[in-house]
Protein backbone atom coordinates (compact mmCIF):
# COMPACT_ATOMS: atom_id res chain seq x y z
CA UNK A 1 0.00 0.00 0.00
CA UNK A 2 1.28 3.42 -0.91
CA UNK A 3 0.08 6.90 -1.54
CA UNK A 4 0.03 8.49 -4.94
CA UNK A 5 0.76 12.21 -5.09
CA UNK A 6 -0.19 14.79 -7.68
CA UNK A 7 1.40 18.22 -7.33
CA UNK A 8 -0.80 21.21 -8.10
CA UNK A 9 1.62 24.02 -8.82
CA UNK A 10 0.44 27.63 -9.09
CA UNK A 11 2.36 27.88 -12.36
CA UNK A 12 0.26 25.07 -13.84
CA UNK A 13 -3.14 26.41 -12.82
CA UNK A 14 -5.85 27.22 -15.32
CA UNK A 15 -8.62 29.76 -14.91
CA UNK A 16 -12.05 30.68 -16.18
CA UNK A 17 -12.54 34.09 -17.77
CA UNK A 18 -13.47 35.87 -14.55
CA UNK A 19 -13.11 35.57 -10.77
CA UNK A 20 -9.70 33.93 -10.67
CA UNK A 21 -6.66 34.41 -8.40
CA UNK A 22 -3.82 36.43 -9.83
CA UNK A 23 -0.48 34.71 -10.30
CA UNK A 24 2.12 36.82 -8.54
CA UNK A 25 5.52 36.69 -6.91
CA UNK A 26 7.35 38.19 -3.97
CA UNK A 27 11.03 38.76 -4.50
CA UNK A 28 12.16 37.36 -1.21
CA UNK A 29 15.50 38.11 0.40
CA UNK A 30 17.02 34.90 -0.84
CA UNK A 31 14.54 33.36 -3.29
CA UNK A 32 11.37 34.30 -5.14
CA UNK A 33 8.06 33.24 -3.63
CA UNK A 34 5.41 32.65 -6.26
CA UNK A 35 1.77 31.87 -5.77
CA UNK A 36 -1.86 32.54 -6.56
CA UNK A 37 -3.39 35.52 -4.79
CA UNK A 38 -6.91 34.69 -3.66
CA UNK A 39 -8.98 37.80 -3.04
CA UNK A 40 -10.46 38.48 0.39
CA UNK A 41 -13.89 39.56 -0.83
CA UNK A 42 -14.57 37.39 -3.89
CA UNK A 43 -14.90 33.64 -4.51
CA UNK A 44 -11.91 33.09 -6.77
CA UNK A 45 -11.07 29.69 -8.22
CA UNK A 46 -8.14 27.97 -9.89
CA UNK A 47 -8.20 24.64 -11.72
CA UNK A 48 -5.77 21.82 -12.40
CA UNK A 49 -6.00 18.76 -14.62
CA UNK A 50 -4.48 15.47 -13.46
CA UNK A 51 -5.00 11.78 -14.07
CA UNK A 52 -6.00 9.41 -11.31
CA UNK A 53 -2.99 7.18 -11.84
CA UNK A 54 -3.27 4.02 -9.75
CA UNK A 55 -6.16 5.33 -7.65
CA UNK A 56 -7.26 2.62 -5.25
CA UNK A 57 -9.95 3.79 -2.88
CA UNK A 58 -10.84 6.29 -0.19
CA UNK A 59 -11.01 10.03 0.02
CA UNK A 60 -8.17 11.92 -1.64
CA UNK A 61 -6.47 14.45 0.61
CA UNK A 62 -6.01 17.96 -0.70
CA UNK A 63 -3.23 19.90 1.00
CA UNK A 64 -3.24 23.64 0.39
CA UNK A 65 -0.01 25.37 1.37
CA UNK A 66 -0.73 29.07 1.85
CA UNK A 67 0.35 32.33 3.40
CA UNK A 68 -1.31 35.67 4.06
CA UNK A 69 -0.46 38.84 2.20
CA UNK A 70 0.33 40.49 5.55
CA UNK A 71 -2.58 39.80 7.93
CA UNK A 72 -1.80 38.05 11.20
CA UNK A 73 -5.27 36.94 12.20
CA UNK A 74 -8.53 35.71 10.79
CA UNK A 75 -9.86 32.67 9.01
CA UNK A 76 -9.59 31.63 5.37
CA UNK A 77 -12.35 29.43 4.00
CA UNK A 78 -10.85 27.08 1.40
CA UNK A 79 -12.85 24.76 -0.79
CA UNK A 80 -11.80 21.75 -2.81
CA UNK A 81 -13.75 19.83 -5.43
CA UNK A 82 -13.06 17.27 -8.15
CA UNK A 83 -14.70 16.21 -11.38
CA UNK A 84 -13.79 12.79 -12.80
CA UNK A 85 -14.35 11.35 -16.23
CA UNK A 86 -13.55 7.76 -17.16
CA UNK A 87 -12.20 7.77 -20.72
CA UNK A 88 -14.01 5.49 -23.17
CA UNK A 89 -16.68 4.74 -20.56
CA UNK A 90 -18.29 8.09 -19.74
CA UNK A 91 -20.23 9.73 -22.56
CA UNK A 92 -20.29 13.06 -20.70
CA UNK A 93 -19.36 16.14 -22.75
CA UNK A 94 -16.18 17.26 -21.01
CA UNK A 95 -16.92 20.94 -21.63
CA UNK A 96 -20.15 20.77 -19.65
CA UNK A 97 -18.98 18.43 -16.90
CA UNK A 98 -19.92 19.53 -13.38
CA UNK A 99 -17.88 19.28 -10.21
CA UNK A 100 -18.96 17.02 -7.39
CA UNK A 101 -20.11 18.84 -4.27
CA UNK A 102 -17.20 20.78 -2.82
CA UNK A 103 -15.72 20.29 0.62
CA UNK A 104 -14.82 23.36 2.65
CA UNK A 105 -12.21 23.88 5.32
CA UNK A 106 -11.74 26.91 7.57
CA UNK A 107 -8.09 27.49 8.35
CA UNK A 108 -7.17 30.00 11.03
CA UNK A 109 -4.10 32.16 10.67
CA UNK A 110 -1.67 31.14 13.40
CA UNK A 111 -0.56 34.69 14.12
CA UNK A 112 2.74 36.40 14.89
CA UNK A 113 4.01 36.61 11.29
CA UNK A 114 1.79 37.49 8.36
CA UNK A 115 3.72 35.55 5.75
CA UNK A 116 4.14 32.38 7.74
CA UNK A 117 3.22 29.24 5.84
CA UNK A 118 0.09 27.30 6.71
CA UNK A 119 -1.42 24.04 5.55
CA UNK A 120 -5.12 23.52 5.05
CA UNK A 121 -5.94 19.85 4.67
CA UNK A 122 -9.21 18.87 3.02
CA UNK A 123 -10.50 15.32 2.74
CA UNK A 124 -12.33 15.27 -0.57
CA UNK A 125 -15.38 13.19 0.28
CA UNK A 126 -17.46 13.65 -2.86
CA UNK A 127 -15.56 11.52 -5.34
CA UNK A 128 -17.63 11.77 -8.50
CA UNK A 129 -17.19 8.00 -9.01
CA UNK A 130 -13.42 8.41 -9.15
CA UNK A 131 -11.61 5.42 -10.64
CA UNK A 132 -8.03 4.68 -11.56
CA UNK A 133 -6.99 6.23 -14.84
CA UNK A 134 -9.72 8.85 -14.79
CA UNK A 135 -9.17 12.29 -16.17
CA UNK A 136 -9.64 14.52 -13.14
CA UNK A 137 -10.15 18.25 -12.76
CA UNK A 138 -9.41 19.79 -9.38
CA UNK A 139 -10.82 23.13 -8.26
CA UNK A 140 -9.40 25.10 -5.35
CA UNK A 141 -11.42 28.10 -4.34
CA UNK A 142 -11.37 30.63 -1.54
CA UNK A 143 -14.85 31.59 -0.40
CA UNK A 144 -14.00 35.17 0.48
CA UNK A 145 -17.64 36.21 0.40
CA UNK A 146 -18.56 33.87 3.23
CA UNK A 147 -18.96 35.31 6.70
CA UNK A 148 -16.72 32.59 8.10
CA UNK A 149 -13.83 33.94 6.02
CA UNK A 150 -12.49 36.78 8.14
CA UNK A 151 -8.87 37.25 7.04
CA UNK A 152 -8.69 40.78 5.69
CA UNK A 153 -6.38 40.40 2.70
CA UNK A 154 -5.16 38.09 -0.01
CA UNK A 155 -4.37 34.49 0.76
CA UNK A 156 -1.48 33.23 -1.36
CA UNK A 157 -1.62 29.61 -2.48
CA UNK A 158 2.05 28.65 -2.64
CA UNK A 159 1.51 25.08 -3.68
CA UNK A 160 -1.02 22.29 -3.34
CA UNK A 161 -1.05 18.54 -3.67
CA UNK A 162 -3.61 15.79 -3.96
CA UNK A 163 -2.74 12.44 -2.43
CA UNK A 164 -4.66 9.18 -2.39
CA UNK A 165 -4.18 5.52 -1.64
CA UNK A 166 -3.37 3.05 -4.40
CA UNK A 167 -5.21 0.24 -2.66
Amino acid at each position, binding site marked *: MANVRADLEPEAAQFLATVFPQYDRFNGTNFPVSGLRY*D*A*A*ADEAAFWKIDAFNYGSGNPTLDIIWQAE*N*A*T*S*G*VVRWEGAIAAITPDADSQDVTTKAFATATTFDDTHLGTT*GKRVHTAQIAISNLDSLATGDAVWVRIRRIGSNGA*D*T*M*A*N*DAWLLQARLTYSDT
Partner: protein
Amino acid sequence: MTLSAQDRFRTFAQFMRTLNLPLTGITKPDLVAAVAATDDWIETNQTSFNNALPLPFRTAASLPLKTLLFCYVAMRRAGRLHADEDG
Protein backbone atom coordinates in the same frame (compact mmCIF):
# COMPACT_ATOMS: atom_id res chain seq x y z
CA MET B 1 -25.97 61.18 2.89
CA THR B 2 -23.81 58.23 3.87
CA LEU B 3 -22.67 55.60 1.40
CA SER B 4 -25.04 52.78 0.54
CA ALA B 5 -24.38 49.35 1.96
CA GLN B 6 -23.09 48.29 -1.46
CA ASP B 7 -20.72 51.27 -1.65
CA ARG B 8 -19.43 50.57 1.83
CA PHE B 9 -18.84 46.92 0.91
CA ARG B 10 -16.99 47.89 -2.27
CA THR B 11 -14.86 50.36 -0.34
CA PHE B 12 -14.02 47.61 2.14
CA ALA B 13 -13.26 45.09 -0.62
CA GLN B 14 -11.04 47.41 -2.63
CA PHE B 15 -9.25 48.60 0.49
CA MET B 16 -8.25 45.00 1.20
CA ARG B 17 -7.06 44.52 -2.39
CA THR B 18 -4.87 47.59 -2.66
CA LEU B 19 -3.61 47.85 0.90
CA ASN B 20 0.12 47.32 1.33
CA LEU B 21 0.33 47.99 5.04
CA PRO B 22 0.36 45.31 7.76
CA LEU B 23 -3.04 44.32 9.10
CA THR B 24 -1.75 42.98 12.37
CA GLY B 25 -4.61 41.63 14.42
CA ILE B 26 -7.29 43.10 12.15
CA THR B 27 -9.97 40.91 10.60
CA LYS B 28 -12.66 41.56 8.03
CA PRO B 29 -15.38 42.31 10.61
CA ASP B 30 -13.03 44.88 12.15
CA LEU B 31 -12.51 46.53 8.77
CA VAL B 32 -16.22 46.53 7.92
CA ALA B 33 -16.93 48.35 11.18
CA ALA B 34 -14.11 50.82 10.52
CA VAL B 35 -15.40 51.64 7.04
CA ALA B 36 -18.87 52.30 8.45
CA ALA B 37 -17.47 54.44 11.26
CA THR B 38 -15.36 56.48 8.84
CA ASP B 39 -18.33 57.09 6.57
CA ASP B 40 -20.49 58.05 9.55
CA TRP B 41 -17.79 60.42 10.81
CA ILE B 42 -17.57 62.15 7.45
CA GLU B 43 -21.34 62.54 7.43
CA THR B 44 -21.37 63.99 10.92
CA ASN B 45 -18.44 66.34 10.40
CA GLN B 46 -18.87 67.58 6.86
CA THR B 47 -20.36 70.86 8.00
CA SER B 48 -17.46 71.43 10.33
CA PHE B 49 -15.00 70.71 7.51
CA ASN B 50 -16.83 73.05 5.19
CA ASN B 51 -16.79 75.84 7.77
CA ALA B 52 -13.06 75.36 8.22
CA LEU B 53 -12.40 76.08 4.56
CA PRO B 54 -11.34 79.65 3.85
CA LEU B 55 -13.16 82.00 1.59
CA PRO B 56 -13.40 82.25 -1.36
CA PHE B 57 -12.74 78.50 -1.74
CA ARG B 58 -15.63 77.62 0.57
CA THR B 59 -18.27 79.29 -1.56
CA ALA B 60 -16.69 78.83 -4.97
CA ALA B 61 -15.73 75.15 -4.82
CA SER B 62 -18.17 72.37 -5.64
CA LEU B 63 -18.85 69.50 -3.26
CA PRO B 64 -16.77 67.02 -5.34
CA LEU B 65 -13.88 69.49 -5.36
CA LYS B 66 -14.00 69.88 -1.59
CA THR B 67 -14.27 66.13 -1.11
CA LEU B 68 -11.31 65.46 -3.39
CA LEU B 69 -9.25 68.09 -1.62
CA PHE B 70 -9.91 66.32 1.66
CA CYS B 71 -8.89 63.01 0.06
CA TYR B 72 -5.70 64.43 -1.46
CA VAL B 73 -4.55 65.88 1.84
CA ALA B 74 -5.39 62.66 3.66
CA MET B 75 -3.65 60.53 1.02
CA ARG B 76 -0.52 62.66 1.27
CA ARG B 77 -0.59 62.33 5.04
CA ALA B 78 -0.79 58.55 4.59
CA GLY B 79 2.17 58.60 2.19
CA ARG B 80 0.07 57.45 -0.74
CA LEU B 81 -0.02 60.60 -2.88
CA HIS B 82 2.98 60.86 -5.14
CA ALA B 83 3.56 64.30 -6.66
CA ASP B 84 5.60 64.99 -9.78
CA GLU B 85 7.86 67.14 -7.61
CA ASP B 86 8.78 64.05 -5.57
CA GLY B 87 10.76 62.80 -8.57
